[in-house]
């Protein structure tokens, strides 16, 4: 206690020396609500956040270095799975599309439809987890388990298709690893019908709960222009009222064939761009994903699930950036090929890495409990932030 520093304390990343009444609180790397090993150095005045310095990299697994050292392009996919392990399908999809664009491959129609179905199921699964953990951050434990219950049903579908529940390695360059099981479409349809009442229940239990609204409305407001300047994407950007979804605005795969709306935050219970808006965007996106699923399952054509590609992919030296809309936002792969069988550089633009960089700007002036809410509303996955 007597070791109060005589000279003012300076912190890397914080522009000025600490004032006397300010205190540093380390939130993380081991903390129940940092969704992994994220460390937030909070500079607080009582319970009010003066500034925050995020420290990431605790889960850095050298994805980009690994990708360069793989002996072929295909081997990168299991590593892509492990970036955003909550939405591994979407990660694989982005990488596969990037490689296919580079090789100029057109995948069969059946593959495109199955990919869209998988990506949308994955979006629902990921949003369920995001919503559930967000509720738990606010203190509601029960919705979390209801969300997990339904997420398990999606994972069951995935397991029946590709044998894995979390890290699928299902979407391959030029196709898929397996065809879907025979009764897949029926099961997805069953899921769609039975999932709708659950969303309603979730809405009455959590979304419109007064305490939940009080905790999230007007908290962590992110203005649209700030969001764009910070490069926010996904529900974080749409929560700020920007109608921007790559599935619509920069269509990839066959998303231009489906009808769906882009839900945006409208500030129904608070300010546009607050935590509740980001949350409700996710809930409504699940409904839209169900719409896409219902359209897609009826149209799956027959056909092959692997296009004829060489065993060893060897693209010409080129570089390109391909982006897809994962549940968390814009996932970009910048791939530099040098004419060999392995990529020379794979840079990933993880959506949550960028979204997380807005956290200090959103949290200044908020309270400690709000930081938890804001962090939960961004929906980070540290596997992807740190790669």
């Amino acid at each position, binding site marked *: 206690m007597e070791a109060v520093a005589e000279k003012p304390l300076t912190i890397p990343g914080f522009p000025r020396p600490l004032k006397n009444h300010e205190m540093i609180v380390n939130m993380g790397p081991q903390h129940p609500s940092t969704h992994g090993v994220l460390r937030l150095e909070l500079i607080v005045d009582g319970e009010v956040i003066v500034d925050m310095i995020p420290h990431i990299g605790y889960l850095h697994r050298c994805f980009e270095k690994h990708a360069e050292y793989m002996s072929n392009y295909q081997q990168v996919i299991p590593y892509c799975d492990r970036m955003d392990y909550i939405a591994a399908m979407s990660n694989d999809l982005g990488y596969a599309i990037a490689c296919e664009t580079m090789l100029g491959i057109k995948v069969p129609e059946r593959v495109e439809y199955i990919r869209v179905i998988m990506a949308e199921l994955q979006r629902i699964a990921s949003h369920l987890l995001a919503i559930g953990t967000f509720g738990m951050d606010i203190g509601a434990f029960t919705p979390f388990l209801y969300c997990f219950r339904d997420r398990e049903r999606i994972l069951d579908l995935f*397991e029946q298709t590709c044998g894995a529940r979390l890290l699928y390695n299902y979407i391959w360059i030029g196709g898929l690893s397996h065809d879907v099981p025979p009764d897949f479409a029926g099961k997805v349809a069953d899921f769609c019908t039975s999932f709708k009442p659950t969303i309603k229940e979730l809405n009455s239990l959590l979304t419109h709960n007064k305490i939940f609204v009080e905790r999230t409305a007007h908290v962590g407001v992110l203005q649209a222009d700030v969001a764009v300047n910070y490069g926010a994407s996904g529900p974080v950007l749409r929560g700020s009222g920007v109608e921007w979804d790559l599935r619509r605005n920069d269509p990839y795969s066959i998303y231009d064939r489906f009808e769906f709306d882009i839900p945006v935050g409208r500030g129904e219970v608070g300010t546009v761009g607050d935590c509740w808006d980001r949350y409700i965007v996710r809930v409504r996106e699940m409904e839209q994903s169900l719409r896409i699923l219902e359209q897609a399952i009826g149209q799956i054509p027959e056909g092959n699930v692997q296009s004829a590609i060489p065993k060893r992919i060897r693209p010409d030296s080129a570089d390109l950036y391909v982006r897809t809309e994962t549940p968390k936002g814009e996932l970009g792969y910048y791939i530099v090929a040098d004419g060999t069988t392995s990529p020379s550089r794979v840079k990933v633009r993880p959506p949550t890495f960028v979204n997380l960089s807005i956290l200090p700007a959103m949290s200044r002036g908020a309270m400690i409990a709000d930081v938890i809410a804001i962090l939960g509303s961004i929906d980070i996955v540290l596997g992807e932030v740190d790669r």
Partner: protein
Amino acid sequence: MGRYFKNIFDAVRTILIGMRITARHLFTPSVTIQYPDVKLKLPARARNRLYVNMDDCIGCDQCSMACPVNCITIETIKSTSDVDLGVTSVGSKKRLYVPVFDIDIAKCCYCGLCVYPCPTECIKMTEVFEFSEYERENLIYNFATMTPAEVDDAKRKLAASESTAATKPAPASRGTNS
């Protein structure tokens, strides 16, 4: 002032709605199962522990090369022309002894990439998922069936045939290991 009372009213109303939902769930059957006593049947495609049928392995090293985490170690010894190692169940002729076929299942990432390139379909992922061990060494699975004596024997034979081959200009014999 109206807002004040509306807030209180909303709070009470939404809390009661929430309580109704949780109370209803109190009497719905639970979705969890008692795991070690009750087990779900895994789908046929479940990707879990790797298994290698050594009778069919031709030592081609394809699985090892496909592995993104290098968890498969294969060593081969060329057989001499006088030995017949038999054929695999799909009919390809075995030309290599496989004295070492180790899978470090602790490193394995269960991606299944090793299964597809195998020409004889001898490596596959099984449904076994309960195989935790107390010692890390126990997770290195040795699939090779050759005894040390057999390995030595094969090596000696190969060395002998190579030394004879070196004396006369024989056509370079290439293994399937490409």
